[in-house]
């Protein structure tokens, strides 16, 4: 481990990266099924987060540790999943059926985002002081529990997030490969017309994909909220940048790579920035006589920088890279055929 990075920080980075992985995966999922770039994804995650805070505030103030995280994750999962489905069925699907183009659907999700944020803010404002006394009184982070480990402290939510992400990814993978409906979902993603001919109810597939996407976001938000500074719904404004960065890094059209892309973006933002900070302030600045500079507040720029690099060098993202070919060039694997292009 690099000097100057605590175990706590490392776990916080991994926790954040895991949440981002789930968020980018969900974003990619609704993109490949319904072709909607969902700008409200970050706020859907915040719904999970705020639901969690509400529950803790009202009913679970004395609940600590694993039960707290399991309950909040579950609550965020369900509430955000249901919200996403409602948004899809009530707003986006009717628009798509009416023939809205890509830009129309994007602006609709943009509008949804702002409406959701406004509703959340309104609830928090109206309830202020009356219904959520503890919610506003205490710092959100104080609800998290720290445990002693390896002679130092780590936050429980930071442990729980990666574990939840791994379990969910495995479950999702099993769903996609082992269940009839999951296989139908993959079939629909690849060729909706043919899937329909086979008798698949593609509308149900799309609806379920919105539920999964929203639910994963809600779960990520419910756990992520323990690391946020405040309960403002505006937190989603910056999270959405990282989520999209993760999806683009993964290739925007691939669910698994979306997960990896989100995870990498999360690590780059937290760990990458910290390493850059240490490298600059401990080595570069002293040796070149440059003034010290803190990069920590600029961690979000990592995601923008990475996105620009990816778009300029490999616009198809990680999914578009011919890994087999790359390995074969390195002498590790036999070459495979190139990725097919679409006929014009």
């Amino acid at each position: 481990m690099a000097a100057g990075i605590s175990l706590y920080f490392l776990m916080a980075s991994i926790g954040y990266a895991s949440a981002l992985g789930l968020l980018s995966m969900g974003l990619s999922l609704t993109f490949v099924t319904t072709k909607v770039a969902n700008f409200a994804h970050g706020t859907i995650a915040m719904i999970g987060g705020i639901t969690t805070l509400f529950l803790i505030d009202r009913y679970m103030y004395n609940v600590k540790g694993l039960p707290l995280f399991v309950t909040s994750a579950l609550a965020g999962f369900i509430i955000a999943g249901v919200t996403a489905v409602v948004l899809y069925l009530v707003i986006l699907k009717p628009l798509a059926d009416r023939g809205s183009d890509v830009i129309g659907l994007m602006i609709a999700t943009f509008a949804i985002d702002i409406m959701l944020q406004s509703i959340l803010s309104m609830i928090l404002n109206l309830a202020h002081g009356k219904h959520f006394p503890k919610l506003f009184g205490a710092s959100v982070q104080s609800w998290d529990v720290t445990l002693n480990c390896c002679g130092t402290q780590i936050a429980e939510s930071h442990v729980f997030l990666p574990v939840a992400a791994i379990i969910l990814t495995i479950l999702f993978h099993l769903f996609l490969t082992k269940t009839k409906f999951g296989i139908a979902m993959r079939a629909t993603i690849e060729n909706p017309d043919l899937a329909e001919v086979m008798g698949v109810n593609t509308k149900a597939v799309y609806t379920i994909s919105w539920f999964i996407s929203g639910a994963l976001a809600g779960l990520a938000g419910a756990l992520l909220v323990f690391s946020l500074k405040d309960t403002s719904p505006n937190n989603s404004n910056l999270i959405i940048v990282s989520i999209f960065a993760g999806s683009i890094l993964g290739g925007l059209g691939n669910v698994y790579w979306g997960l990896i892309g989100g995870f990498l973006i999360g690590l780059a933002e937290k760990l990458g920035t910290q390493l850059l900070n240490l490298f600059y302030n401990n080595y570069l600045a002293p040796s070149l006589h440059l003034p010290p500079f803190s990069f920590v507040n600029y961690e979000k720029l990592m995601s923008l920088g990475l996105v620009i690099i990816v778009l300029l060098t490999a616009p198809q993202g990680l999914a578009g890279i011919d890994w087999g070919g790359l390995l074969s060039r390195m002498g590790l694997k036999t070459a495979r055929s190139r990725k097919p292009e679409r006929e014009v």
Partner: protein
Amino acid sequence: MAPILEVKDLNAGYGRFHILFDLNFKVDEKEILIVVGPNGSGKSTTLKAIFGIAKVYSGGIIYRGEDITRLPPHEKAKKGLAYLPQTNNVFAELTVEENLRMAGYTLPPDVVDERVRTVLESFPFLKSKLHDKAKSLSGGQRQLLAMAMTLIREPDLMMFDEPTAGLAPIAAKEVVEKILWLRNDLGKTIILVEQNAKLGLEIGDNALLLVSGRIAYYGSAKDLLANKDLGRLYLGLAK
């Protein structure tokens, strides 16, 4: 015996593109009807119109005495019609086994298990590739997989759209042999759109020659094959 399928005064196309004009023909039980004609003459559109993918402007499609003109594709599939598109007829990213199971999506699981087993007996080469993705199959193998998938639902009338297009002669021959087997051994009725006219006409009972969306010849396939003017007729050069 009443024909299994009757097409009456069919006019069809896509939106504003009117492709087919006044088609009339019928298909008997266990018949192979070959549809030939130059590119763009409306061969594929004929199958799509029957299956409900292209838009039918007027005319009727009667299947076993029942008017099915306006039924959506999946309803037609339930009645025993099957249609194999020329391309994209398998899920390339799914394994062979998943493809076969997708084909039986609407059937009870135990029936699917049973039929997958039966179909694998008839297409033994698929057994060794059950867990490979369909995109790893060659063109001919993909057409055979698509055919196997269609069989899972045990249709009565099967419509194939240029299953030999782009295939090497040996692979094309294998596909054609399988089509003959479908009719001879399983008793299926088949409508086959074929660009390789000789190959098709040799196995067909009746033939339908389309030129510019109209029927230029309808009758015995052998007679059409024997026609000295076939080439000119086929290419739309005959006056």
